[in-house]
């Protein structure tokens, strides 16, 4: 087993990893920026190193200081969490160069899956269904020919993209050139990589993803699916649930099967998530996230498995020790993200000093958070403050439990998404379990109307 892990992250996920280390009897080293000096993960970890000032490039992306902190504190591994350096293949290589185990897949897998066009090609080779589309489009003329073949409407996407940046919907040929130029310029500005590719636009799909775990000896299991279709207009997730409601058994089985197929094909190891678009019984591979996800707790609740501990165990060279037959989901779990955002003002991020903070408890409620009464919310980072997770035997009970928990939640000092989540949970669309990724944007548009 690993002896001491440096946690290269902040906020709730850093705390989550420190807790897993402690329960495994492994030492933990936190890193923090000057803006996070009083953060909970700093207080709870065995040791902590300041790695730079508040802005992300100078602290949580400061690779030399992070690696040096791991070495001088005697760590033998680094857990990257999510975001920041979690899907940076070069960082994973640098860890290896310094004798530090990167808790995640091998660098070449991160590289292949990090480039969306390459990932789609690799998945297609593996026999995984992908949305009809193209490889990188070099010119607008090539894009025009491709769109005729794929059939309008099409979606232009940045190969290095994420968060909706460098993405354009093209309904008809007349709009193609402008969309192509806009997408490449936005991708270049956002990712320093202006390359785009094309996909057939699947109208009103659901975003369903499959959690996988794979050890370093070829054993792969899935831990079911999560429905992450409740997304803000910026495509950022707000509410997730496990399992996906109203999903046909045929579609569910295909999703699970394709996830296993994909992992075996690329020789995947550690935890990962395959994201799919689903429409009816059709499912199409979208992308793979080679890290722990924000929404991992809903899977943990229904499978009774600690995914972060499993990541550390796998990175320590231990075999999974169980097979797919040993895994059976139980009950239903929902997660609501409590973000410091003004939901009535296009989810504008909020920063400042918090007043009173009170989180709910009681049966079936789990809170993953780093905040506390009087804590500061720095302006430099992601606005997520907490995840409220409700678990119950049925989906109906989980919704009722979540509503109860959100009404007990108090975060003073900043606007949060708590009320927005409550509003969504109360809609007929959500309660029926028949919703897609356009659900929240439509709800917001109705409000304005």
């Amino acid at each position, binding site marked *: 087993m690993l002896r001491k892990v440096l946690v290269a992250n902040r906020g709730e996920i850093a705390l989550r990893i420190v807790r897993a280390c402690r329960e495994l009897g492994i030492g933990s080293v936190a890193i923090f920026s000057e803006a996070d000096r009083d953060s909970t993960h700093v207080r709870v970890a065995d040791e902590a*190193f*300041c*790695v730079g*000032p508040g802005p992300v490039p100078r*602290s949580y992306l400061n690779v030399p200081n992070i690696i*040096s*902190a791991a070495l*001088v504190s005697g760590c033998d591994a680094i857990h990257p969490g999510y975001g920041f350096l979690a899907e940076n293949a070069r960082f994973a290589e640098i860890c290896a160069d310094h004798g530090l185990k990167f808790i995640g897949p091998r660098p070449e897998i991160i590289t292949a899956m990090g480039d969306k066009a390459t990932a789609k090609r690799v998945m297609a080779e593996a026999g995984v269904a992908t949305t009809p589309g193209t490889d990188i489009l070099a010119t607008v003329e090539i894009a025009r020919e491709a769109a005729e073949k794929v059939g309008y409407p099409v979606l232009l996407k940045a190969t290095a993209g994420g968060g909706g940046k460098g993405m354009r919907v093209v309904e008809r040929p007349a709009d193609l050139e402008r969309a192509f130029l806009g997408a490449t310029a936005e991708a270049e500005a956002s990712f320093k990589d202006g390359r785009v590719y094309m996909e057939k636009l699947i109208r009103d799909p659901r975003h369903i993803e499959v959690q996988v775990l794979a050890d370093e000896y070829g054993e792969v299991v899935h831990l079911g699916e999560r429905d992450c279709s409740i997304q803000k207009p910026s495509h950022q997730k707000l509410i997730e649930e496990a399992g996906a409601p109203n999903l046909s058994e045929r579609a569910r089985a295909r999703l699970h099967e394709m996830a296993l197929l994909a992992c075996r094909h690329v020789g995947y190891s550690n935890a990962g998530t395959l994201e799919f678009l689903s429409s009816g019984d059709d499912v199409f591979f979208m992308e793979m996230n080679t890290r722990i996800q924000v929404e991992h707790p809903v899977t943990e609740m229904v499978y009774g498995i600690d995914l972060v501990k499993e990541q550390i165990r796998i990175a320590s060279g231990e075999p999974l020790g169980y097979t797919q037959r040993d895994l059976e989901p139980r009950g239903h779990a929902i997660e609501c993200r409590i973000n410091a955002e003004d939901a009535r003002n296009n989810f504008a991020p909020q920063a400042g000093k918090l007043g009173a903070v009170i989180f709910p408890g009681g049966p079936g409620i789990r809170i993953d958070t780093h905040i506390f009464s009087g804590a500061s919310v720095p302006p430099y980072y992601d606005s997520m403050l907490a995840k409220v997770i409700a678990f119950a035997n049925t989906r109906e009970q989980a919704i009722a439990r979540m509503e109860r928990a959100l009404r007990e939640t108090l975060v003073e000092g900043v606007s949060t998404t708590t009320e927005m989540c409550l509003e969504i949970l109360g809609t007929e669309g959500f309660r029926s379990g028949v919703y897609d990724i356009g659900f929240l944007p439509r709800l917001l548009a109705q409000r304005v109307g």
Partner: protein
Amino acid sequence: MTPENPSEDEPSARAQRLAEFFVNTPLLRMRIERDDEEFEFSRSSLAPGRRASEATVTPEPLVERPVDVLRADVVGILRFGRHEPTLGEEVAEERELAAIEALGIRTSVRARSSGRLTAILCQDGAAVDYGRALFEIERG
């Protein structure tokens, strides 16, 4: 070490009482900050064979000297050089006081200006993180 009820006296009387207190200590320098008042007493040395109480002491008006705090700007292991810095020594501008070793690279910690080294807040061989205060230099 503090005389009884100095705040009940006038400032000059308080200074006198503190001076009397100071001469009966073996200290070369004493500084007291309390509320809005600051007193500093010093003497160059005690004459051989002379008792501390026999030393001549005059209260000096306090001159605020700017203090440079030298901090680590990388994470690594701190090493003193061949000339280990000593408390109270006069250092020249650009004098290397220590270096931080990280990933095979040595980053010097140098005095930004000449002055007197008034605090050494680090130890040779210790791990230091970003922003850690290492030395204080009272500018000369």
